């Protein structure tokens, strides 16, 4: 059986950064990537806006991916298996994968780093009503068809949901000559980045209606139109105000779900809000030697944050494999009052700093974020605006941790 200190599952931005992080610590690394090349979903994100934080310049998705890929491929300490789909891993950290060239592959890992990314919520998951014609796509599927395959899915478009991929696709399809008639968002705010609403919708005069949803679709073979209606406070559509919009395409940008199917039966403790694993500041899960980073852990807004997080996980995984990862008791991080979730969910008291990432539940202007530990305030911060679509962070001193950490907002 092949052996590596760290086995990284997934070769997207998180997987590549985790591998490089593990290499910094001198570990031997294998990346198992199911696609034909490294880079993950970045490969189809041909728009720019990546890397502003991490590289201090604006790159396209493929460019951002290439910077990491070049480093990974140049590093003889990293073995990359392409078209290798991981089927399972067990308590002994034996990872089972299938690939056309290797067949059934079993690898003994010293530590495992999960970096499988996320998937899009489907029409089925939201219970889309009406007929079942061609013409309904998740935004990412339409993005792949246009940017990798070179084919456009339709000409008259309605987009349900204002997630970032939906916003990006509104602009992309417009530039291909399609007419985007409406972006409907069921919430009173967008789950996407402000800059995407400005650059992808406003700049092209594409209307965005909040508190509005698609109530049903029509068409036998191909979509012929959608009904939209405003929703009340309980998110129920007000059907008397239903309105018909003829279109041949409905794109769904209604949420991303961490792809943690591999974890069923492994005992890794999951967090209900994020649909990812519960982790400490090293991104260690509840199962020793299993780490998680990137969109498989929680859905990020910026790839820069993914890379940063995955470096942390990769370094820690290498330390674990060498038996030098700090361990000991942790304190819980409990979000409340406007903070939807905070990550990591557990922190070790001690030396150094730790960044708490969090998301708020609605748009807040001039509201303060407070962090307490053992009942004492240890940090506060007053951002101008906080929106659910944009991940926030706040850094705390670990030496100030004296007990349970609470993170919340206040006036």
């Amino acid at each position, binding site marked *: 059986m092949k052996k590596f200190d760290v086995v990284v599952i997934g070769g997207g931005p998180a997987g590549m950064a985790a591998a490089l992080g593990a290499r910094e610590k001198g570990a031997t690394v294998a990346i198992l990537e*199911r696609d034909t090349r490294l880079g993950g979903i970045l490969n189809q994100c041909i728009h720019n806006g990546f890397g502003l934080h991490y590289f201090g310049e604006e790159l396209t998705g493929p460019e951002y991916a290439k910077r990491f890929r070049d480093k990974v491929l140049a590093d003889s300490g990293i073995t990359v298996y392409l078209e290798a789909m991981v089927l399972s891993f067990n308590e002994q950290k034996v990872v089972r994968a*299938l690939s056309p060239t290797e067949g059934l592959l079993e690898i003994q890992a010293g530590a495992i780093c999960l970096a499988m990314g996320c998937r899009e919520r489907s029409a089925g998951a939201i219970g*889309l*009503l009406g*007929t079942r014609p061609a013409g309904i796509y998740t935004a990412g599927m339409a993005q*792949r068809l246009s940017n990798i*395959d070179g084919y456009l899915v339709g000409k008259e478009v309605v987009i349900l949901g204002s997630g970032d991929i939906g916003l990006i696709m509104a602009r992309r399809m417009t530039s291909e000559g399609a007419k985007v008639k409406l972006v409907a968002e069921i919430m009173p705010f967008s789950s996407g980045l402000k800059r995407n609403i400005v650059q992808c919708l406003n700049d092209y005069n594409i209307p965005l209606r909040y508190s509005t949803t698609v109530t049903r679709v029509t068409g036998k*073979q191909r979509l012929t139109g959608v009904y939209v209606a405003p929703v009340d406070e309980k998110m129920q559509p007000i059907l008397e105000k239903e309105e018909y919009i003829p279109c041949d395409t409905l794109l769904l940008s209604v949420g991303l779900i961490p792809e943690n199917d591999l974890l069923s039966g492994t005992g890794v403790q999951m967090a209900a809000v994020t649909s990812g694993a519960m982790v400490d500041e090293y991104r260690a899960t509840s199962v020793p030697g299993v780490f998680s980073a990137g969109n498989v852990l929680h859905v990020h807004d910026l790839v820069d944050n993914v890379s940063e997080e995955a470096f942390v996980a990769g370094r820690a995984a290498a330390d674990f494999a060498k038996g030098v990862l700090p361990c000991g008791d942790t304190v819980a991080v409990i979000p409340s009052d406007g903070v939807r979730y905070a990550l990591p969910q557990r922190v070790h008291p001690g030396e150094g700093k730790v960044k708490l990432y969090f998301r708020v539940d609605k748009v807040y202007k001039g509201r303060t974020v407070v962090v307490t530990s053992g009942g004492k305030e240890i940090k506060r911060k007053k951002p101008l605006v906080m929106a659910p679509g944009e991940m926030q962070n706040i850094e705390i001193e670990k030496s100030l941790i004296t007990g349970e950490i609470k993170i919340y907002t206040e006036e």
Partner: protein
Amino acid sequence: MEKFDVVVIGGGVVGTAVLRSLSAYNAKILLLEKSSDVASGASRANSGIVHAGYDAEPGTKKAYFNVKGAAMFPALTKALGVPYRMVGSLVAAKEGGLPALQELKARGDANGVKTEIISREEILRLEPNIGPEITYALYAPEAGVVSPYKLTIAQADQAVVNGATIRLEEKVVALQKSKDGFILRTEKGEYTASYVINAAGAGASEVNALIGEYAPMETHGVGDYFILDSKEAGVVNTVVFPLPDEKGKGILVGPTADGNVILGPTSRKVPHERAEENEVTREGLDLVREGVKRLIPAVNLRSVIRVYAGTRTAVGSDFIIEQSARFPHYFMLLGICSPGLTSAPAIGEYVAAAAAEALGLTKKKEFLPLPARFHLNKSSDEEIKQKVAEDPAYGRIVCRCEKVTEGEILDAIRSPLPAHTVDAIKRRVRAGMGRCQGGFCRPRVMEILSRELNVPLSSVRMGDKGSEIAPYEVKEGYEKV
């Protein structure tokens, strides 16, 4: 004009069952299907239940073919490699429902079906999640679940292996009696037949009208369903029905043969012109939610991966399975609603025998089996290793949710009845049927279809004509990466 001994109209589970049984005889046989694949009507979207047979009125065709058909399923599905499990069924009743259960049991006894009325304690052993109000149930241990479209497809495949011809996208538009048989005209061609079998499902009355046979009033129904993620599979073990009412067998909760959980159906009447409608309605889904709550309240509706609607067509209260009196070599199958799926294999044998007798057909010396297919998630490590060594395509996973390899998709495309649409592949190998509903694999399946059929990606369809998925090329200047 092509000449056939027997032409079957309609490629549903009944039509393909007839075709399969007929393919055991020395005869030139043809099946005409108007859609782009078999199993495109009622056979595509139904509950997938192999009914034990207690529900049908004793003495009816429904009772006869149900009981006979159900007994055929274990061997048939094994031979065809179709997912089937004898999971048993419960009709769950609240306090006061005992007389109704006893009535059902009496019917079961008359039909020769093994059933038993069990107490709440016994129900809990079978269904730990049963609703708190349920006190008694009629348990039918021999009820089962099957994949209705896979059965239809496998029947079609085996018929083709045994020499049958299937023509897709050929709707019969004219049918007339000739001197020594029949002349059938479709949108694409003309055929003669010595014997014609009308298994056109929702269109059967229309086909009858073409030749001048009586065209009875049909009642068309639509039922809404939920499919849950396979991770919810443990919530229910048997097929759990409420007490049946005038509308039908009611909203059930059960496992599917492929390992998901199915909830539904409702029963909405629609006019004939909307007989093939597949519209999912808000009211329908609400009714299913309500119904399910009473039976198995633990069902997690947050794990829904698909909602859809299926159709069914009834004519009166019983199946019409009879040779025409006016046209002796014309056989009619009308109103094959529930338990039509269960009855189909028995109906197939019966009708094929009737045609064979009428034409004096003899049985072939050999009835060829359907070669076994490789399925990654049903194979041992040794089998997988060997298969990937033979052909690396079996090591390339395309559908990550259902673990379907490129090799399996190629097998579907190269089937006896080839799959040439995304939906046809989905129904054969489950690519796109998992929790992401094709989010990742659909473009990949399209790429494989485009390559294998040697057509541009823009003409790859979801199903029937007009369902192209990505019909336009992006602007000039695009280069293949």
